[in-house]
């Protein structure tokens, strides 16, 4: 490697790390991104100096086409399709790593060193697995493949067996690098495994899996680095691998599931029992604390709709603390007080006064109902009947004609409640199934406190 390339790689590594650290807070994130982009440019520049490269023709064409596709995808895909996009992208990443491995192997399988072979094997294994696994995840999210978890007998056992099989093949390959059959078989089994691992996983848990596949993609890149002795690949891959792994652990913990469940698809069942039962016939969107925090903090105007659940959870102080935090970030917070929220006249007033919410933030339904359309977030804290749009739209509903809070008109509606149980009036609430509504299940006080922490 030339000194210039070496320096460029070193620079790229440092820039990646600094860039990634920038993600530590919303203010520095974009700068971090820019720094990483420079790092990537440095790494590419370093590579283009590589003496083995004899023509830039193919590179230019493929990179040009790839960039065009990338730009198009970034510009056209709506924000709500983010998980799908990331999944698809991982599958590209996995494929790229696998193909580089195959290409290397095809050239050097006679001469390759044992240790290099190990690295190459890893690369292809993880690359293949990521490729098909991510493709499956994408398909599920897009609805091409049934989103519900698919289970069959001995699912975990067979997956574990297959995993052991690929591991064994890898070992064999490291010992006898030249046996091509082992290599291609391993590649194939890894790809099958990718499919099987993702099949049993339900839609709600997909983000965890995607993050895990991200981690695998990183490991594949690291393995490439070992194979071609390139530190920047090792480092970037390790950054990805570790952060993706931890992120999936963090996310599964936030969903109150052990990570073991995630790895072995067993939580597909927990999913079936808990979330599905919750949702009843409705197709709802469950969100994590992090999602809720992001939605809240990325808005400019939040309207809180408190209800009886806030009173039950005695969440008024937690709500006020969250509002203070949002206001400190320059976000406007108002409370929409429905006249019959709670169980006695003025129930919300009594509680919010106790929590020292300034009177001028409290707005009556009539007064604020027009503002929902401009609000970024309607935060429904343990309210149900008073935000039920059926009162406006469904003449056969027992509450038809009652004025309700227009929480459904806000750009996003975040609902905090414990279960899918109905409120006082005992009727279903279609707000919960609307496309711009997300639900965060749990005691409202607890949830609000966690959201505050996430924003800290």
């Amino acid at each position: 490697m030339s000194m210039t390339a070496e320096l460029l790689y070193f620079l790229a590594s440092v820039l990646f790390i600094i860039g990634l650290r920038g993600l530590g807070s919303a203010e520095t994130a974009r700068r971090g991104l820019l720094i990483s982009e420079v790092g990537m440019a440095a790494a590419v520049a370093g590579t283009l100096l590589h003496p083995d490269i004899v023509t830039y023709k193919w590179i230019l064409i493929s990179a040009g086409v790839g960039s065009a596709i990338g730009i198009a995808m970034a510009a056209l895909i709506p924000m709500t399709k983010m998980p799908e996009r990331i999944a698809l992208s991982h599958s590209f990443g996995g494929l790229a790593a696998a193909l580089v491995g195959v290409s290397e192997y095809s050239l050097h399988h006679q001469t390759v060193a044992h240790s290099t072979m190990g690295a190459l094997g890893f690369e292809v294994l993880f690359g293949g697995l990521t490729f098909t696994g991510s493709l499956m995840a994408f398909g599920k999210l897009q609805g091409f493949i049934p989103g519900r978890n698919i289970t069959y007998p001995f699912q975990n056992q067979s997956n574990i067996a297959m995993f052991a099989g690929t591991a064994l093949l890898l070992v064999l390959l490291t010992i006898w690098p030249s046996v091509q059959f082992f290599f291609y078989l391993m590649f194939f089994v890894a790809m099958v495994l990718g499919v099987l691992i993702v099949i049993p996983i339900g839609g709600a848990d997909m983000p965890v899996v995607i993050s895990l596949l991200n981690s695998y993609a990183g490991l594949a890149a690291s393995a490439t680095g070992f194979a071609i002795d390139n530190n920047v690949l090792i480092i970037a891959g390790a950054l990805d691998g570790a952060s993706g792994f931890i992120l999936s652990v963090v996310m599964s913990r936030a969903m109150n599931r052990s990570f073991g469940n995630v790895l072995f698809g067993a939580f597909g069942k927990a999913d079936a029992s808990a979330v599905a039962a919750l949702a009843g016939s409705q197709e709802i969107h469950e969100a994590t604390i992090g999602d809720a925090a992001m939605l809240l903090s990325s808005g400019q105007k939040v309207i809180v709709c408190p209800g009886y659940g806030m009173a039950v959870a005695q969440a008024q102080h937690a709500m006020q603390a969250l509002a203070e935090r949002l206001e400190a970030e320059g976000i406007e917070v108002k409370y929409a007080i429905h006249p019959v929220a709670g169980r006695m006249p003025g129930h919300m007033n009594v509680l919010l006064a106790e929590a020292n919410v300034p009177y001028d933030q409290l707005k009556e339904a009539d007064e604020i109902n027009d503002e929902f359309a401009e609000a970024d977030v309607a935060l429904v804290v343990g309210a149900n009947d008073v935000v039920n749009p059926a009162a406006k739209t469904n003449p056969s509903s027992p509450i038809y004609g009652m004025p309700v809070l227009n929480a459904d008109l806000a750009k996003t509606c975040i609902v905090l409640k414990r279960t899918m149980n109905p409120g006082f009036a005992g009727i279903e609430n279609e707000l919960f199934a609307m496309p711009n509504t997300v639900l965060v299940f749990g005691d409202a006080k607890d949830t609000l406190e966690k959201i505050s922490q996430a924003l800290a």
Partner: protein
Amino acid sequence: MKIAVPKEVREGERRVALVPESIARLIKKGVEVVVESGGGAQAGFADDAYRAAGAGIIDSRAALLGQADTVVQINVPVADTVAAMRPGATSTSLLFPLAHHDLVRELRDKQLTSISLDRIPRTTLAQSMDVLSSQATVAGYRAVLTAAQHLPKLFPLLMTAAGRIDPAKVVILGAGVAGLVAIGIARRLGAVVEAYDVRAVVKEQVESLGAKFIDVGTQADAQTAGGYAKEVSEDFQRRANEVIAGHLAEADVCITTALIPGRPAPRLVTAEMARRMKPGSVIVDLAAEQGGNCELTRADQEVVDNGITVLGPTNLPSDAAKDASRMFSRNVEKLLLYILKDGRLDIDFAKEIVRGCVVTHEGKIVDTQVAESVGA
């Protein structure tokens, strides 16, 4: 259509059934409103304010009632009023028809349509017309004030150079609307509050206000489908009372609000229980009109027995006449707007709310429960 708002004739009544604000909104919907001169004065609404809102002011009560298509009042109409009304007109007021059989017959015979505001069904939709709730809110607030006013000690805990003043202990029996509001207000004033109700769902509601629910052993669950309470067995009540007695002995204030629709008020505090309270303690009994939750209660009197003051105010909302009138008026306004069609009342029995509150119509008692009770 002409709506008439006479002055209330009940003794000590300071409220008025419609306030200028509501009248202005009603007039926009194409009705005419006339108000008896001085009708709102005691609630703080001068004749001028009514005129400004577009209402006519009429001095003669007879003339007022005689020309009205709809008469809106708060209290149960007196015979004179009914007599002065035009046949076919509508009377809107509290009526409690199950307790006023003669009056119901009179209304029927006079071909009056009578709307009994106390019988508006307690559905989510009808809450904005529910005068019982709105007046109970005011009553709950005033009950705490009345208790505080009569209590020779302070409500909040204070640790001062002149010693420690312990917080008042307040026990609230019956936690319907008035009871819950009283809990909230008493807590705000710094009291330590405990509450009891016979309906099981109330425990969560009491706790949602930061008060303690009194556990009487096995909690009854005496809730009817309509959300009201039903009577419990004597035996159960006795056992509950024993527990309550213990809490009362420690209390400075007891506010009782327990009611069962159409029945005499349950006896939650016996004379003996009351006398075991600390000297200077105060009992405010909101069920005085229905016989009282406390044995010592005498309606609208201040009874002092063994150093315990027992109050049985029957018209607490009238003490906060301005806000109480506003709320009552808003309820009636919502009801009228709900029933109004093309500038006149449209008594459409397909509507659940109309079915619930209209007692007599076109010479018939249309409410079957009332009809049965009146026996006609």
